[in-house]
Each structure stands twice: as structure tokens, then as C-alpha cells.
């Protein structure tokens, strides 16, 4: 049992992988809860793709450095967000449509840039990451992002909830709802970036969305939902890494698939509005 559950984490690379993933769980999970409450899950998906070209340029210049990839990612993510806003303002397209147009261009561009390195391993690295390659500086960056995210969330927590529950009310009371919206979007991009190395640019969103979706099938109160989300993310990180270690799997997909399995199970068997619940209620 010890060999199975603890022994793998004696190696430094596994220790770093575990620390970075647990740290990611702490901040990505609550951000995901708010992403869902604000009905912005697909927006999050689009954002996670938009960061690709910037991350790719960072990668081509500096290799698998979280700092360079992250900076590039933030810049290209913000560019796509602003271009989409501009498009929806100056044309008849709505923001979701213009976002979709730009994010798919971003993916094409990103893949093209990485492929200039003539190496498919590079492509795999950027798209799917590797928690095992997390070095000390990346670890510091990830934990800084976690700390920053949690502090900011604590400060704007109530405003964020009120604004997404009743936007008109919030605007009439505090005014300027877009400031909180902007801060929140920035947190989303920041956490996607933090997930680059451990989970990859394409899977970074998984840690954010899946545990948060899972929790909604078990709890109704926000505090419980948040706790369960963080718990689920921590569990997925730990067991995903173990699976990756024992079966020689890539870490990102392993972690995301554990979270995915929890989600699928909850979707069917959860106690709050799951498929089973709905069917039982219909038949009774």
C-alpha cells in the first residue's frame, strides 16, 4: 500500500509535480465555480484556446519555460478578448460569435508556430504539458498565482456573487460591474496560464470546470460547493499523478480524466438534480 500511494512521491520530480497540482487545485477550483455561476464556461474554453499562440511564441523563444509561455499566453489571451469585444461593438456579430472566430484562428496559429520547431514532442508538450517537468521557478510562479488568486477572490467574493446573481441590482448599487468582470477574467487567464505546464494549454480548463461541475450534483450551498470543488480537484490531482506514475501515462490527461470520471459518476448518481434523481422523480 505504501509503495502504491506514497513511495512514488519520494522522487523530487514527483514531489514538484504533486505540489504544483495541489496548488493549482486550490485556486483553479474556486475560479471554476464562479465561471459556472456566471455562465461563462464556454467563454473559459474559448479563452483557454486563445492563449495558445502567445504560449507557442514563448515556447519557441525560451523552451518549456512557464514564465515566457505564461507572459505570451496572457498577452494573446487579452488580445483575443479585446479583438472580440471590438468586433462585437463595430459589427453586427455578438460577442460569443466573434470570440469563436478568433479563438479557432488562435489555435491554428499556435499549432503552426510550434510546428516551426519540427518536433511533434514540442507540440505535445505545449498542448498537454507535463507535471513531471515542473522546475523550481515554475513551482514558485504557480504558487504565487494561487496565493494571488485566493486573496483577490476573498476581496471581491461578495461583489462577484451579487453581480452574477443580479447584475442590474449590482449596477444600481455599486456601479461599474465591468471592473469586477475584468478582474475575474484576468484571474481566469492567470489560472489557465498556471496550468500550462502541469496540464497543458488545452487541458488547463479541465481542472477549473470538472470539479466545479461535479460539486453541483452533491451540494446546494455555495460554501459546500466550494469546499467539495477544492476537495475534488485535490483528489483528482493526487490520484491522477499516481495513475500516471504507475501506468506510465501523460500527467495532464490522467488528472483531467480522474476529474472527468468523478464528474460522470456524479452526473448519473449525484443527489442533487442528477439523471437518476430526475428519472426517479418522473416515475413517482
Amino acid at each position: 500500500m505504501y509503495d502504491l500511494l506514497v513511495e512514488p512521491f519520494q522522487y523530487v520530480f514527483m514531489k514538484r509535480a504533486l505540489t504544483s497540482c495541489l496548488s493549482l487545485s486550490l485556486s483553479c477550483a474556486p475560479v471554476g465555480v464562479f465561471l459556472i455561476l456566471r455562465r461563462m464556461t464556454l467563454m473559459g474554453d474559448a479563452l483557454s484556446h486563445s492563449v495558445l499562440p502567445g504560449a507557442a511564441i514563448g515556447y519557441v523563444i525560451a523552451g518549456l519555460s512557464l514564465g515566457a509561455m505564461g507572459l505570451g499566453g496572457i498577452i494573446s489571451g487579452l488580445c483575443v478578448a479585446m479583438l472580440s469585444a471590438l468586433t462585437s461593438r463595430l459589427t453586427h456579430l455578438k460577442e460569443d460569435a466573434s470570440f469563436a472566430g478568433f479563438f479557432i484562428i488562435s489555435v491554428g496559429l499556435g499549432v503552426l508556430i510550434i510546428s516551426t520547431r519540427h518536433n511533434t514532442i514540442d507540440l505535445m508538450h505545449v498542448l498537454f504539458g507535463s507535471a513531471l517537468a515542473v522546475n523550481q521557478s515554475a513551482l514558485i510562479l504557480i504558487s504565487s498565482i494561487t496565493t494571488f488568486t485566493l486573496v483577490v477572490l476573498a476581496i471581491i467574493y461578495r461583489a462577484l456573487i451579487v453581480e452574477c446573481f443580479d447584475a442590474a441590482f449590482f449596477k444600481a448599487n455599486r456601479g461599474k460591474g465591468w471592473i469586477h468582470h475584468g478582474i475575474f477574467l484576468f484571474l481566469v487567464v492567470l489560472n489557465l496560464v498556471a496550468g500550462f505546464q502541469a496540464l497543458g494549454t488545452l487541458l488547463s480548463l479541465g481542472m477549473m470546470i470538472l470539479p466545479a461541475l461535479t460539486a453541483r450534483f452533491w451540494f446546494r450551498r455555495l460554501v459546500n460547493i466550494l469546499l467539495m470543488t477544492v476537495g475534488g480537484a485535490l483528489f483528482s490531482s493526487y490520484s491522477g499523478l499516481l495513475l500516471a506514475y504507475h501506468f506510465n501515462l501523460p500527467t495532464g490527461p490522467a488528472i483531467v480524466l480522474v476529474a472527468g470520471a468523478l464528474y460522470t459518476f456524479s452526473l448519473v448518481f449525484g443527489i442533487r438534480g442528477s439523471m437518476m434523481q430526475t428519472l426517479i422523480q418522473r416515475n413517482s
Partner: protein
Amino acid sequence: METARRTQPSYSRLMAFCVVGVLMTSPLITLKDVTLSYGAHRAVQHLTGIFKAKSLTAIIGPNGGGKSTLIKALTGLLKPSSGSIVFHKTKPHETAYMPQKSELDATFPLTVLEVAAMGILQRLPYAARYASQDLDQIHGVLKVVGLEKKAGNLLGTLSYGQLQRLLFARLMLQDQPLVILDEPFASIDARTKELLLTLIQEWHGKEKTILVILHELDLVSKYFPETLLLAGTPIAWGKTTDVLTDHNLSAAFKQSLQLGEGCHV
């Protein structure tokens, strides 16, 4: 009103209060030839008039007559395409506003207490906990609306009438000089309706300025001293007895046919 002010130590509010004290029955909001439009569609045209401070005004008119659009402009959510709206002693964010029916998500993971507590959002610093006197006050208003035993319940467990009463509690906590209600009487039960009428009288007694959109003409003539009859263009605005004449109502009806909508007057 005065005691409530003391708990909100903001300079601009203090100023507003002093000015309210000096000027008695003067205008609170002045509208000058206001036109409100959505793109090419003009919902309200050439509206000129005054909402007096401390007045209780019913806003009536056919559907599509621009009542809700006017409210949007008064709460700062929509800018007039021409004309001007001047707030004399209050600002759009010093308004307690209750939207039409509630377009709120009842599955949102919040408790009754948390929703009522939004009423004190404006005076609560970021990241601050609720002080014990805040909680006392919140429980107090929940008691007034008959939801004191539901404080810990989730929003999803409330009936429609209860949800509406919860929003009244939130309005009471906001305690703003200007109260705007958009169709608060639509499809509510007798008890909730009675409570709301009592609250409106109480607010009126506390010298708040109150604007209410409604369709029930019997309530208008019974409880509202002033009325604005709006059907795209203003038909009449003034004392309710002067506004609710057959002549005015049939004029509004004719206008509403031009608006191409059913008439509720």
C-alpha cells in the same frame, strides 16, 4: 430616514441629506424633452416633467408604452437619445430598484439571508464580515416580510410570493431616498400585495420618493396621489384625479393601437 443616514457615513450622502432638509417640496428629478430609444425604435418621446421629492407616483400606460424604458433611464441603465434627465438631490445609484417580476435564477446557491443582505452591500466594505448589528437589522426586515424562519433556507425553496417578499426586504435594507418598483403587483398573492401596500405607505410617510409601474387602476386611484400616463408619448402627468379621466384613458388607448400592442389600461 435620519437614523438610517447616520449609519451610512459617506460625504456625498450627508450632503444629499442636508440639501433634502433645506429644500422641501422641490423637484427630485427633472425631465426635459426626453426621448429614449433602442436603435431606431423610439420607446419614449418628448417626455417633459418633474418627479417631486417625497411624491408617490404611479406610472401607468399600455404595454410597449415605454414605462420600463423610462425606469431604465432613471436608474442609469439607458442614456436618453435626446433631452436631459437631471437628478437634483440624488444620484441614480441612490435608488432602491426592484425589477419587473424577478428574472433571478432561483437555483442560484444563495440563502434567503444572503439575498436580503445584498441590501446593505453599498455600505459594506469589500471583504468585510456582517457586523452583529447588520445581522440584527437583516433579521428584523425578514421578520417584517414574514420570512424570519426561512433565513437559512436556500432561494430555490421559496414560493413566488415569498421570493417577492424577500426582494421587499432587500429594498427596505437599501433604505434609499428614491424607490422604484417595476410592476410589483403582477401575479402576487393577497398577503404579499397587502404587505407591499403597507410598505409603500410607510415609505411615503418617511418622505421617500416612490415611483411604481402598475396596471391596477383601482390601486392607483386609491393609493397613489400622482400619476404619469405614458403611451409612447406622455398623455397626462399630475394629480391622479386629473389624470384618470375618460378622455385621457381613451387617448392612451388610441395611442396603444398605434403602438400595435394590446392595451392594459
